[in-house]
């Protein structure tokens, strides 16, 4: 899932400036699972903002809606009836994708309520960890299912570097060395031979280079 966390309250309060009525839009997708932008968090943010404004003697009206997903136009469309003339600002509590989809569809000032962090998973209730750097060409089959792009601080393809110490990364002793993990796993699986192969430089043009990336599936398109 996409993992995000809430922006500090004062930052969101500044983003909506002197708005009188805001529409706070949650997302039932990833951000509900990582407990940052679902129905519950929408309610809490709305309550925080109202309390803050009430204290300042500048009351704020809030409208709360949580969409199935903000990254799908069909759900973004269902927001239409709530985007009334009197809404001054829309706060999107989805990942950056959701914020942009709302901004593209509605002629309103749309601001993010969250900081989008990474693609990751839940390691324990209340803890989320990054696992994938969305590099565009997955090489997990070469590394025993452990991603060196994101889990190695230097994204090395032929690790470890000389800074690997007792299984920890030299950049931060709290972080396990990804290449130690890869080595241990390959050893356990009896595939150390795979690590003898020298990996050529990765084709980064498939990654974050050159503007937005697109995936097109002709077989599922609906146009004639």
């Amino acid at each position, binding site marked *: 899932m996409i993992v995000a966390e809430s922006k500090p309250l*004062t930052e969101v309060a500044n983003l909506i400036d002197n708005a009188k009525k805001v529409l706070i839009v949650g997302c039932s997708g990833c951000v509900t699972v990582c407990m940052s932008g679902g129905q519950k968090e929408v309610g*809490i943010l709305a*309550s925080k903002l109202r309390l803050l404004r009430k*204290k300042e003697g500048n009351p704020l009206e809030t409208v709360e809606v949580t969409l199935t997903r903000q990254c799908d136009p069909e759900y973004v469309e269902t927001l239409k009836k709530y985007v009334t003339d009197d809404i001054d600002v829309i706060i999107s509590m989805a990942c950056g994708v959701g914020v942009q989809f709302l901004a593209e569809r509605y002629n309103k000032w749309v601001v993010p309520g969250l900081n989008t962090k990474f693609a990751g998973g839940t390691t324990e209730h209340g803890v989320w960890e990054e696992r994938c750097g969305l590099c565009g060409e997955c090489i997990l089959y070469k590394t025993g299912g452990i991603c060196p792009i994101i889990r190695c601080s230097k994204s090395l393809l032929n690790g470890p570097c000389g800074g690997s110490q007792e299984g920890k990364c030299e950049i931060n002793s709290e972080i396990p060395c990804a290449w130690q993990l890869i080595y241990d796993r390959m050893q356990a699986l009896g595939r150390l031979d795979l690590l003898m192969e020298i990996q050529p430089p990765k084709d980064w043009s498939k990654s974050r280079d050159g503007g937005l990336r697109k995936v097109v599936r002709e077989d599922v398109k609906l146009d004639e």
Partner: protein
Amino acid sequence: MTVFEPKIIAFCCYYCAYSAADLAGSMRLEYPANIKIVEMPCSGKTDIRVLLEAFERGADGVYVLGCMEGDCHFLKGNLRAKRRVQEAKKILEEIGISGKRLEMFNLSAAMGPRFAKIANEFTERIRKLGPSPLNKNSTIKEEE
């Protein structure tokens, strides 16, 4: 002289505090009329949003009463409540309402006197803090 009569909401777990309140009543123990009790099936029902809304709707102070640690009827509800109350206290500080207006206490169903003591002490605490900054027109009664 005027005294400030705070509005206080006590979210009470059914298995301990709610019965303790009953017991305090049958023991004829006095506790301030400022306390409005809301029954919960377990303190684990504590929800940050509800705590915040209590303040939004005019509470000057709020507390959550759960079973003694280790004695929760649902095993860990009171421990979860404790974390949520901590988080909500931080939010109140951030907003400038003071985290001291919110607290969690633990007691058992047999502790009628403790129920009354918490009610008295917490009311005193809120009285000292004065009305919530949200309640500009709070009830300040003339003392007879």
